[in-house]
């Protein structure tokens, strides 16, 4: 029996869509799936320069980018159709696009609540609704939602974000039930504190306290998440669906 290897992941020549691929965890996911031989099309909201950097980071890889606001269901569906018309297959969808607007609940504005829920939750719904028909008709597909440790455990100043990630976890489990008969697996990766721009403020404010709660005693790297996504996209996870995989170095709350 052969040991699992990157070259044998079953991903080569497949097509992946990754939302929010211009920076941070998304960029690492794009690079990792492209390195496995996939064609990767990623979305970004507005930072075209960062999107270009993601593409430049993987010379020779089949990576392209498109500005899509995942909150816009019509834009998502037009984007997915465009990709599917060209590639005639969508093997993997990674719902990674997400935002934070941390503050104490009493301080949150309407916009802080709506923006986080619309991007993190509705965005994932929009992309799933657009991609699923293509996966269903092929009788094969894998969806990986990027959740968060906040989805399961509480965090001060993160009611909106935690609610959005809790929603993603529920959606992941339920959608897995709906589409399992079509050979589509749906899982989530729940990152802990990862070295990205998004977590910069919290790391600066409470870096020592955070590290003290991580069993592995280090902040995670975007690649740590990308590797888990690779696993859930690959054939090595063929018997896994409806799961939320924590990739947080063993994060302990107070």
């Amino acid at each position, binding site marked *: 029996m052969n040991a699992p290897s990157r070259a044998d992941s079953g991903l080569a020549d497949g097509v992946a869509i990754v939302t929010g691929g211009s920076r941070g965890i998304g960029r690492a996911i794009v690079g990792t799936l492209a390195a496995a031989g996939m064609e990767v099309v990623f979305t970004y909201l507005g930072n075209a320069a960062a999107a270009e950097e993601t593409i430049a980071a993987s010379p020779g890889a089949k990576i392209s980018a498109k500005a899509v606001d995942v909150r816009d269901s019509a834009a998502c569906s037009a984007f997915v159709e465009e990709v599917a018309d060209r590639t005639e297959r969508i093997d993997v969808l990674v719902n990674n696009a997400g935002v934070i607007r941390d503050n104490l609940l009493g301080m949150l504005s309407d916009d802080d609540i709506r923006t986080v829920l619309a991007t993190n939750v509705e965005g994932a719904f929009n992309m799933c609704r657009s991609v699923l*028909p293509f996966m269903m*008709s092929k009788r094969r597909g894998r969806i990986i939602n990027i959740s968060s440790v906040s989805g399961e455990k509480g965090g001060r100043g993160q009611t909106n974000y935690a609610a959005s990630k809790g929603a993603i976890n529920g959606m992941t489990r339920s959608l897995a039930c*709906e589409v399992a*008969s079509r050979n589509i697996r749906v899982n989530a990766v729940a990152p802990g504190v990862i070295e990205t721009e998004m977590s910069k403020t919290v790391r600066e404010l409470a870096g020592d306290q955070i590290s003290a709660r991580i069993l592995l005693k280090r902040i995670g790297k975007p690649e740590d998440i990308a590797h888990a996504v690779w696993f859930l996209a690959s054939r090595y996870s063929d018997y896994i669906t409806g799961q939320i995989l924590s990739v947080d170095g063993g994060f302990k709350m107070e």
Partner: protein
Amino acid sequence: MSTTNITKEEIAAILPKVSETIADALGCDAADVKPDSSLIGDLGAESIDFLDIVFRLERAFKVKIPRGKIIEDARGSLSEAEFEKGGTLTPAGEQRLREFLSEVPADRIKSPVKAAEIAKLFTVETFAKMVIRQQRAAPAA
């Protein structure tokens, strides 16, 4: 929207492609897909298959079919309250449904009709009629 003026010729013209699409989606033998086959009862379709079938029909005929379109069309000009009450079709709703699903043998529509079970009545021809209505509503771009 009136459906009485969809002609037999119009339906016959697209039935082969509709049947083939449905057979592909359900993974069944094309010979088993007859115009009056009930998708759920005869062909073993599940609710998730309707999504797949509608999606494939959209691609095959280059039409847009909003989700839930057949049920919405079935109600016609009746309001939801006029169409059903407590999950069961009103007499007016049932009459409207019989007109709308004229392709469904009358004895398959057993009174009282539960709203949630309308989809069980759909036949291959029901989907052909939906495609024709959508083709008329928005001619292929």
